């Protein structure tokens, strides 16, 4: 009998009681004794010189404790915010990497760029005084998009005369062009991957505190990776050693990537708290979030696919422009290069792939990783152009895909774009998805829609992603300035209960439950007797945090390795108690036994013996039962699957209704199927949001048009249907749990599925020119009525 709280069980979440009763402890719920409040003075202009910042009136206002400007940071040698990844252009030159001051110095470069911070006794006083800071801006022309940046309508940074950050390539362009020239069919498609705003419902918060007695700085922050923030802020910005800098990320209300990065406000409150010798709290409001949280996507691409006469893919050539925004955020340069172009083989045997990616500075908020980060952009390019190719050569889109899939017996499979896929069965998930949506019945459903005056379309997306980020040596050779291993510590207490310390961070993913399930399975301890601790650099040895669907694949693997050590030591203790050799000891369901005898010791007795070592092998072992492991993955993991969307369009209004959405995913082994389904639902909703609703809009000069939930269309309950989700299991062969990761799949797969359905429905009405995301009613109606 498998345990009802072990691996594979749909256990209800341990963390839910506190959340459903309003007892979560989010950063804004914390207050420190003697706390002050920070309000930032932010640029209303996209691009301007800072002629002067006059704080004299504001400084005299009620409750004001201190005001700091960019000059104060220069004077005290506070450095700019670092970028964690260096990309080299195809000519070998490093990317242009301009300074990113935490408070603007000399110039502001996007709406929301921070100019000064006011610290006051109350939030109201801080805000009032911030209003009274007089800034003399010299307005400059701005570039609000890549077209304007390329045309040189303004220069964002002195170092980048043409606004270009890098011009990078992967593959051999001449070889690709030669192959393309011989192709029987060549399909070309221009694509825009619309700019998005992650919008976790909890806005960012940062509280800085300084202990005058110990000299310890503490930052409480809404972060997905507190150790990474400690590393970046301590070593690069403030010059604080790790033992005097504590970073705490308590309950965090959603991240989706945008809470990975190190932000100016974190450094400012930490630095200023030591200056004013009082705690400082900053809470972003939603308007501030729209103009300071790193945005996502924003690619413009021209893709070309060459096929032979039978529909075999010969070559894929991709030219992409990627918007970096005004400054380089923590992982920004890696997103459109190593997290994007390396995925362009998709699930297919395409022998030649070439990508050229140019990154540009604009007068907009920095762009960085958002759920999927590079991989949704890659899946969108591949799956849109494959669908387009099927239409052009008159093949069924499922058949064209199947014809080109990497076969289940071809793994490990070396792609032409650097990655080696570990395992998979792509035809398996495609077939599952076809069955789930009743693909054979589509023609009849389309006819019924037509009879009702509607247009119906169906669209596939057979995506792949590289997760379990990442083998440190590999990413190091590609320009990453950090290692991407993970750490776990397993502390078995004297009475047999267990505390796990993990360097990953849960902000919705349910680690407190799934990590406990791994313990239950391995040690036979009920999940009620397991606590999972994360989010505090003083409690946890180290860690790189949660992003890139890495928590279970990398953090869970570290946990499994630590458990190996716990089990090995516990076996030795049990062997001593049973007067046997540890090689004869078996451990199952929480019991140590000797085969062929009735000798038996319970795990709890071994734990007690470890801490009350009266009868203990002291010559061989130390007392105690606590082990730690670092795990650096051997490879990425490669979750993959097939999502299918079916839409109905009302040609009179242009409204697209998502009639059905099915997902068949392969995440390897699954620890908690309930949580996995929830992750897929959430990802799909964000992907559908990108396809149909969401889009961050700047005007030509860089003024933010979509600055609130009134203007930026978040998916709401009545925009979405229920989803049908299912999984196939092809275990990951190179990590101990056989898991691949599930957090990003929906956001990666869904946009192409929905847009293939929308463009398919429109094509049936004679519209062959594809529209770009989001497929809003006005855009769809205009396209239908232009024809």
């Amino acid at each position, binding site marked *: 009998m498998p345990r009802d709280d072990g691996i594979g069980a749909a256990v209800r979440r341990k963390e839910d009681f506190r959340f*459903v*009763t*309003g007892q979560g402890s989010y950063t*804004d719920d914390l207050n420190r004794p003697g706390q002050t409040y920070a309000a930032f003075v932010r640029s209303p202009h996209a691009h301007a010189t800072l002629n002067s910042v006059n704080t004299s009136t504001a400084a005299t206002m009620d409750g004001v404790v201190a005001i700091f400007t960019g000059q104060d940071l220069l004077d005290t040698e506070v450095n700019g915010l670092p970028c964690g990844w260096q990309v080299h252009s195809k000519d070998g030159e490093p990317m242009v990497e301009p300074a990113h001051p935490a408070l603007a110095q000399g110039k502001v470069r996007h709406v929301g760029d921070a100019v000064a911070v006011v610290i006051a006794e109350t939030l109201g006083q801080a805000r009032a005084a911030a209003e009274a800071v007089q800034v003399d801006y010299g307005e400059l022309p701005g570039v609000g998009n890549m077209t304007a940046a390329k045309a040189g309508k303004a220069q964002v940074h002195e170092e980048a005369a043409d606004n270009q950050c890098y011009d990078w390539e992967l593959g051999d362009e001449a070889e690709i062009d030669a192959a393309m020239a011989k192709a029987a069919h060549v399909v070309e498609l221009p694509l825009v991957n619309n700019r998005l705003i992650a919008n976790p419902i909890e*806005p960012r918060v940062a509280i800085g505190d300084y202990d005058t007695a110990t000299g310890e700085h503490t930052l409480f922050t809404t972060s997905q990776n507190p150790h990474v923030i400690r590393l970046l802020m301590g070593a690069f910005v403030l010059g604080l050693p790790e033992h005097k800098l504590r970073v705490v990320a308590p309950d965090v209300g959603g991240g989706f990537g945008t809470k990975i990065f190190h932000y100016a406000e974190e450094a400012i409150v930490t630095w200023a708290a030591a200056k004013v010798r009082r705690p400082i709290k900053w809470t972003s409001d939603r308007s501030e979030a729209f103009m300071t949280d790193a945005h996502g996507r924003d690619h413009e691409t021209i893709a070309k696919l060459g096929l032979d006469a039978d529909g075999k893919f010969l070559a894929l050539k991709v030219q992409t422009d990627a918007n970096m925004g005004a400054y380089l955020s923590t992982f920004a340069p890696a997103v459109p290069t190593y997290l994007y172009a390396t995925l362009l083989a998709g699930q297919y045997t395409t022998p030649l792939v070439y990508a050229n990616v140019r990154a540009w500075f604009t007068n907009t908020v920095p762009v960085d990783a958002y759920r999927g980060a590079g991989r949704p952009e890659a899946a969108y390019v591949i799956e849109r152009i494959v669908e387009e190719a099927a239409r052009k050569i008159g093949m069924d889109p499922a058949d064209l895909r199947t014809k080109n899939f990497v076969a289940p017996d071809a793994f490990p499979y070396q792609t032409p774009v650097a990655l080696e896929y570990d395992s998979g069965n792509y035809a398996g998930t495609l077939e599952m998805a076809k069955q789930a949506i009743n693909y054979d019945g589509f023609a009849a459903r389309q006819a019924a829609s037509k009879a009702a005056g509607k247009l119906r379309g169906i669209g596939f997306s057979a995506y792949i992603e590289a997760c379990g980020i990442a083998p440190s040596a590999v990413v190091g050779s590609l320009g990453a300035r950090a290692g991407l291993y993970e750490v776990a510590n397993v502390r078995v207490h004297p009475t047999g209960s267990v505390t796990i310390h993990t360097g990953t961070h849960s902000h*919705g993913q349910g680690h407190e439950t799934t990590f406990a399930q791994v313990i239950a399975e391995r040690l036979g301890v009920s999940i009620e007797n397991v606590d999972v601790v994360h989010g505090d650099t003083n409690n946890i040895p180290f860690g790189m945090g949660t992003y890139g669907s890495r928590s279970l694949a990398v953090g869970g693997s570290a946990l499994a390795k630590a458990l190996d050590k716990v089990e090995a030591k516990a076996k030795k203790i049990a062997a001593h108690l049973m007067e046997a050799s540890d090689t004869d000891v078996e451990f199952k369901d929480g019991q140590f036994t000797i085969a062929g005898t009735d000798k038996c010791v319970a795990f709890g007795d071994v734990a007690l013996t470890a801490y009350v070592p009266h009868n203990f092998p002291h010559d061989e072992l130390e007392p105690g039962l606590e082990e730690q492991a670092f795990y650096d993955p051997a490879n990425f993991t490669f979750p993959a699957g097939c999502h299918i969307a079916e839409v109905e369009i009302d040609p009179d209004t242009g409204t697209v209704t998502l009639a059905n959405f099915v997902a068949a995913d392969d995440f390897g082994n699954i620890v908690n199927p309930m949580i996995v389904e929830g992750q897929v639902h*959430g990802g799909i909703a964000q992907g559908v949001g990108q396809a149909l609703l969401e889009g961050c809009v700047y005007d030509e000069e860089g003024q933010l048009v979509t600055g609130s*939930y009134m203007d930026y269309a978040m998916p709401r*309950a009545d925009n979405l249907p229920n989803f049908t989700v299912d999984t196939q299991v092809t275990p990951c062969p190179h990590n101990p749990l056989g898991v691949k990761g599930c957090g990003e799949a929906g956001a990666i797969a869904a946009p192409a599925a929905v847009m293939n359905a929308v463009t398919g429905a429109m094509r049936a009405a004679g519209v062959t020119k594809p529209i770009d995301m989001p497929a809003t009613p006005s855009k769809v109606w205009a396209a239908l009525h232009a024809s």
Partner: protein
Amino acid sequence: MQSVSMTINGKHVSGEVEGRTLLVEFLREHQRLTGTHVGCDTSQCGACTIHMNGEAVKSCTMLTAQADGAEVSTIEGLANGDELHPMQEAFREHHGLQCGFCTPGMVMSATALAKRNSSPSEADVRHWLEGNLCRCTGYHNIVKAIMAGARAMNA
């Protein structure tokens, strides 16, 4: 400053507030009831939803003074000790939450729906949630939870 008094979760409270103090501020900062959350500044997200005199309202969109003399209930008042309210239990059972930030507002909004409609359909629930945003769940499991919770509340 202005004197206000009201009943919150069955307990009489009073205090002095500035005229501009929002009800959510009074709950979170003055009463330390931090289960009610703030997720936006345009009355869109619904994370601050509470009940005033039995109706679901957004506590970020009203002044504390407007609640003077009212019966207010928040997420903290729903469970009976360790025993969850049926709607809270339904959210837990159906995995209707991930990060938990929108959850208090969702649950308070859902219990108000259940009082009007003892067996809401999927469409009823999706329509009712127009004032509550969730970025984690895609709503699928929230809708399931509310349908089940409403039935449990009215059983």
